């Protein structure tokens, strides 16, 4: 049953690339040296051969993290038979949501070669603002509360970005101050909320916020969303390839594209079927997929994303090309803050509350671990948002699996550490094997 485990990841992966189909080439998949097989192969068979050759030469893309997930799935399933049960997969989705989004947040700044250590507590501040606004005697509309929480987080990110570029201090230091300072602000906020946050806890009494991670769509809705998503995504990819061919440019063979669409649909169908046994697809799944879609567009389809990779790859080259480095850096920190805000809301939704016990210092390490496991380089410029999603999912799987095994906190830390080391070691070894001539 391990295939199911790998299945839902592939689904996210495929759904992401189908829904967004961002990069027509190796651009976003810049871990790769050499052009993407899509652009060299003329047929399905040739595609397979080129892909295999690239994997052997170390350009494995998302393969290690997918293989790692399958291995983890097999191990946890064989040690604890509940791991791949429908109800646990359902729970896993809810647990994975905020870990994935915090990894996505961190990815925004890692791509620049920067780091944001405050992302965890930033998330908690946003969640506190939102939770407080819907809990007061005369509550704000939920949408306003959510937007306010996101805005506060984005502003905190922007301010840290501004300090970094104005004073030319390493972001490590600025956000370390942010980590400490925001922890203090979090406690101060709870003091200010009076009896709402009594005892350092604000409980969510808001159905909408609750349902983000624990609520599910009806089984029928799940199927409809899947079919619509796959059809729209598939149609987009095929028309885009046709447009490239019409202009005499290289496009992936139709066979490869169709295979990918069928694969995405099949994996999606398997996931929907399993989750429907547990009641339906939790809302957090489409939320994460939509976020992945938006962030992939931001990173690969608009100017900001292109400049983000350029600055992360070679800041001097970017500067000479007329790119405003400060603007890109501040924007990246703002996106990081915004996604931290999403993280805070998903976290509060999962726990049903937000409290001063929030482990912001620890969660930022999940964020970095997830992004790096997903292939995002700490030195900037390399990696994809999809990688951050998969890497975050790996962390969540460990979290969930080790919990099922009853190993507690000790096990979780050690496992995460080992997987992180393994992922980085694999990446380093692969690159050593493929040093370009």
């Amino acid at each position, binding site marked *: 049953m391990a295939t199911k485990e790998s299945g839902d990841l592939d689904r996210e992966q495929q759904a992401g690339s189908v829904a967004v189909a961002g990069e*027509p*080439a*190796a*651009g976003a998949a*810049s871990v*790769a*040296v*050499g*052009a*993407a097989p899509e*652009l*060299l192969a003329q047929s399905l068979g040739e595609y397979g051969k080129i892909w295999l050759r690239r994997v052997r030469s170390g350009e494995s893309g998302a393969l290690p993290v997918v293989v790692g997930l399958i291995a983890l799935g097999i191990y946890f399933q064989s040690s604890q038979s509940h791991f791949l049960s429908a109800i646990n997969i359902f729970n896993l989705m809810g647990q994975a949501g905020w870990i994935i989004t915090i990894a996505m947040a961190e990815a925004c700044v890692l791509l620049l070669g920067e780091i944001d250590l405050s992302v965890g507590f930033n998330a908690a501040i946003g969640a506190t603002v939102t939770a407080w606004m819907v809990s007061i005697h005369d509550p704000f509309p939920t949408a306003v509360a959510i937007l306010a929480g996101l805005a506060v987080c984005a502003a905190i990110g922007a301010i840290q970005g501004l300090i970094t570029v104005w004073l030319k201090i390493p972001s490590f230091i600025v956000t370390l101050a942010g980590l400490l300072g925001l922890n203090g602000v979090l406690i101060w906020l709870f003091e200010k909320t009076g009896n709402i946050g009594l005892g350092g806890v604000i409980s969510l009494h808001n159905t909408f916020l609750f349902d983000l991670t624990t609520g599910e769509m009806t089984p029928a809705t799940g199927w409809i969303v899947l079919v619509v998503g796959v059809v729209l995504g598939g149609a987009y990819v095929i028309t885009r390839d046709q*447009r*490239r061919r019409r*202009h*005499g*440019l*290289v496009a992936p063979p139709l066979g490869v594209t169709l295979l990918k669409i069928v694969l995405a649909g099949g994996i999606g169908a398997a996931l929907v079927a399993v989750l429907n046994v547990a009641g339906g697809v939790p809302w957090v799944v489409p939320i994460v997929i939509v976020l992945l879609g938006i962030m992939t*567009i931001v990173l*690969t*389809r*608009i*100017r900001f994303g*292109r400049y983000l*990779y*350029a600055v*992360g*790859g*070679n800041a*001097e*080259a*970017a500067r*000479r*090309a*007329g*790119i405003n480095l400060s603007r890109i850096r501040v924007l990246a920190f703002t996106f990081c803050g915004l996604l931290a805000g999403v993280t805070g809301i998903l976290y509060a939704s999962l726990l049903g509350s937000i409290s001063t016990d929030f482990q912001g210092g620890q969660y930022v390490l999940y964020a970095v671990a997830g992004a790096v496991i997903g292939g995002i380089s700490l030195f900037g*410029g*390399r990696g994809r948002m999809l990688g951050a999603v998969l890497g975050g999912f790996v962390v969540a799987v460990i979290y969930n699996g080790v919990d099922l095994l009853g190993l507690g906190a000790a096990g979780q830390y050690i496992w995460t550490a080992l997987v992180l080391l393994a992922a980085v070691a694999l990446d380093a070894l692969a690159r050593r094997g493929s040093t*370009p*001539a």
Partner: protein
Amino acid sequence: MVANSAGDGAAPAAVGAAPAMTGTTVAYPPLLQLRGVGRNFGPVQALIGVDLDIPAGQVTALVGDNGAGKSTLVKCISGIYQPSSGELRWKGNPVHIHSPRDATNLGIATVYQDLALCDNLDIVQNMMLGHEQLKFGILDEVSMELTAKQTLHDLRVTSVRSIRQPVGSLSGGQRQAVAVAKAVMLDARLVIMDEPTAALGVSQTELVISLIRRLADTGHAVIMISHNLNDVLAVADRIAVLYLGRLVGVGPAAEFDRQSIVDLMTTGASARLGNGHGSAAAIVPGARTGSEG
């Protein structure tokens, strides 16, 4: 004829008004004229009264020993430094280039020695960096790829397998070609190349040399800084020699040989140059021969 233009650095020299050189017909008027260009760094005079014409359609090699002022001169043209004295004329009109942006707007592109490419981006992304084409706010990959493809085709850069491969996977010559193509694509009229063949192998050097030739043949003015006299003699139409901030020799490449260039570079004078020319036997900095034109 080799003209010496080492003046006192202030007044534009009378010489060099006519671009035509002895023995060659210049098909284009000088695109860029430097008149008495000087540059101080505090008390240090890095450039002293440089008069130089950069004609379109020709490769002008700028040679000189370390510290001769080659880079300073190029930076004055590309807007990184402002000349302390003298003036630049672009198509005959005096111009002030205050920033690299000004230079780009005039049509001056500089290909730096370190190339300034992003290894993680592919060829198209690098070439279009900072000048992306958009369609409804979304990057228009198809038209950018077509533009890049056309530019590379015009320069006959055909050795890359896919223009969607990351620049990090290219050879040194290919990277140089991408950097040049990037410069040319911005409607550059003058392309400045800083040590374009440094650190390249033989075949890669050939690729770059032919690329430089093609740039000139397509009507671009090219300034090439180089230490490699083989490459200079192979591709340059005109050679300008700097010695301690002064222009000590400039003229058609045919009038120089390896030894005369080395002499000029190292001593600021060459006894060999006069031989067979019947003009000044040696060109001494500060002395004016007025033999140009």
